[in-house]
């Protein structure tokens, strides 16, 4: 657009309004997060009695964070989430990459029927109830960590992304490798994968973020608290209204007063949000371009 200049007054006014509009968009996007950050560092009593938006820190302290760091549920949740994210992403990527390679080969007779079989699941599905019955009754995975790793480890959409990237690699590379005696597995892992690194990074990041944020499967399949992923722990702290499991143990702060426990409840919620979201905030700026490219590759494929 830079090549085209707009000299008219109307155009200049529009530019001004547009700049202001997007400044407002930025404010609206950040404000809820800003509110949570400021509240999490403020005085517990002040936070509880505050109405409306919290836009500044009052009496800076980290008591809320101390409470959160002493809450074992958070740490167990973190460890469980890391396990589920790693397990699901590793397994999912392994299946995706191998299947995508086989299905991207034009001389593979079964490529298109299998591709149809996989793509069809994007249009029509059995829904949650039959899957729940299968996982709990037939595979006996109720309250098992496998129930969080196996059923959703792979996605047809990402398989298509990887397959498209592989189709775009010149066939001559594979042909010459075959003449040198390389097998399919060697070609896949030593020639193909290094050539589509950007797509792989994108897909891995999508798998990771999806698995990191997932909570529904954990809620329906798990009962033992020591297996809960972070998001389910968060749900208990932030969303569930029954008081029994949201009580705060404030002995860490050297106070056993139950009135204080109620006082800190709100503060702890804010601190929990920050503690659970910080990894995302740290990594997000570095990986943002991959997410964009993911959407764009998907768009080209249509």
């Amino acid at each position, binding site marked *: *657009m830079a*090549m*085209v200049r*707009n000299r*008219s007054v*109307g155009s200049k006014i529009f*530019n001004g309004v547009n*700049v202001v509009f997007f400044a407002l*968009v*930025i404010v609206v996007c*950040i404000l*809820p*997060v800003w*509110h949570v950050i400021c509240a999490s560092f403020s005085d517990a009593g002040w936070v509880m009695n505050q*109405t*409306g938006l919290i836009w500044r820190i009052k009496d800076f302290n980290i008591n809320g964070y101390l409470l959160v760091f002493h809450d074992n549920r958070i740490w167990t949740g973190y460890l469980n989430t890391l396990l589920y994210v790693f397990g699901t992403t590793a397994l999912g990527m392994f*299946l*995706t990459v191998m*299947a995508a*390679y*086989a299905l991207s080969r034009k001389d*593979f*007779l079964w490529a298109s029927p*299998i591709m149809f*079989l*996989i793509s069809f699941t994007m*249009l*029509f*599905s*059995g*829904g*949650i*109830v*039959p*899957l729940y019955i299968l996982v709990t*009754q037939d595979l006996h995975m109720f309250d098992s960590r496998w129930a969080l790793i196996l059923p959703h480890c*792979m996605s047809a959409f990402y398989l298509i992304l990887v397959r498209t990237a592989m189709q775009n690699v010149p066939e*001559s590379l594979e*042909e*010459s490798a075959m*003449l040198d005696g390389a097998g399919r597995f060697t070609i*896949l892992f030593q020639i193909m994968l290094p050539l589509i690194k950007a797509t792989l990074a994108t897909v891995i990041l999508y798998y990771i973020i999806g698995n990191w*944020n997932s*909570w529904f499967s954990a809620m*329906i399949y798990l009962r033992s608290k020591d297996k809960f992923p972070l998001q389910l722990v*968060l*749900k208990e702290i*932030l*969303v569930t209204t029954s008081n029994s499991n949201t009580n705060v143990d404030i002995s860490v702060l050297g106070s056993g007063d139950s009135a204080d426990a109620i006082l800190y409840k709100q503060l702890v*919620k804010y601190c929990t*949000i920050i503690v*659970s*979201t910080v990894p*995302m905030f740290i990594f997000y*700026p570095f990986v943002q371009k991959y*997410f*964009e490219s993911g*959407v*764009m590759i998907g*768009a080209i494929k249509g």
Partner: protein
Amino acid sequence: MRSSTSALEAKPRRPRKFTWSNIKKDLVKNWPLFIMVLPAVAFYIIFHYIPMGGLLMAFENFKPKLGFFNSPFVGMKNFADFFGSAFAGRTIRNTLILSLLQIGIEFPLTILFALLLNELRSKRYRKTIQTVSYMPYFISMVVVAGIIIDFCSTEGAVTAIVGAVTGNYDNLLGNPDNWRTIYVVSDLWKNLGFDSIIYVAALAGIDQTLYEAAEIDGANRLQRIMRVTIPGIIDTIMIMLILRIGQMLSVGYEKTILLYNPQVYETADILSSFVYRKGLQEANYGYSTAVSLFNSVVNFFLLIFANAFSKKYTESGLF
């Protein structure tokens, strides 16, 4: 590449037809590919096609103890029960209204967002806006629900603004009249920026010489947007619209389940949350599968029709 030409000549014709000799030849030549694709095929059969077969539960009074093959067959009873109850009207209406709000408000606003972003002069400012507005998409739904609950509570930030206007400082999530507004506004906050990426990408693909030519022809800014920009992204818009219409009856349950309560079921309860409640919370498996099957079948045909319609009128489609 020593003898690549002779290798190319010697290369057998690619098998296309499923004749016995082709299948045998393929198996001998491509057995490693079979091994590679086998785990994924197993995954899709087990976790997608077996549950699809499990949809037959919709015609049974399914009892986990009796299993799929021994549970009593009840024909269309589950469907009759659902459509004869007050739940059918309520959940279908709520699902459709939310969907139409998403298509009517969120969908055009996402396109408008990308168009306005495209009109910004400063590349750096544009980049900053993109970074900031994509961010909420990556915050987990549980945390977003937590923030919504906090903002809509009696002391919340949104309640304070609403209260200042109406004088009513009640919890906003307790009133069924507010549900759809809260749903759509929080959707916009979380997804608007990120959903616009696809249009930003399409806009970047428009040939810049078209704009120069338009300016030379005396087109003003609005005319350039209407005659060059919009036609340049209309294919993308249509594809996204087809996808969206194909999901008309599948409004996601995550946000609803996290935020709703019996007080607001009247406007909040949608097909997917109803299936979850009846099926997984109340263990009414056959009945909820019937509702879910109805939902899937309607979605499937909506997508097919939307695609056919788009192919006929815009020559672009998904398949």
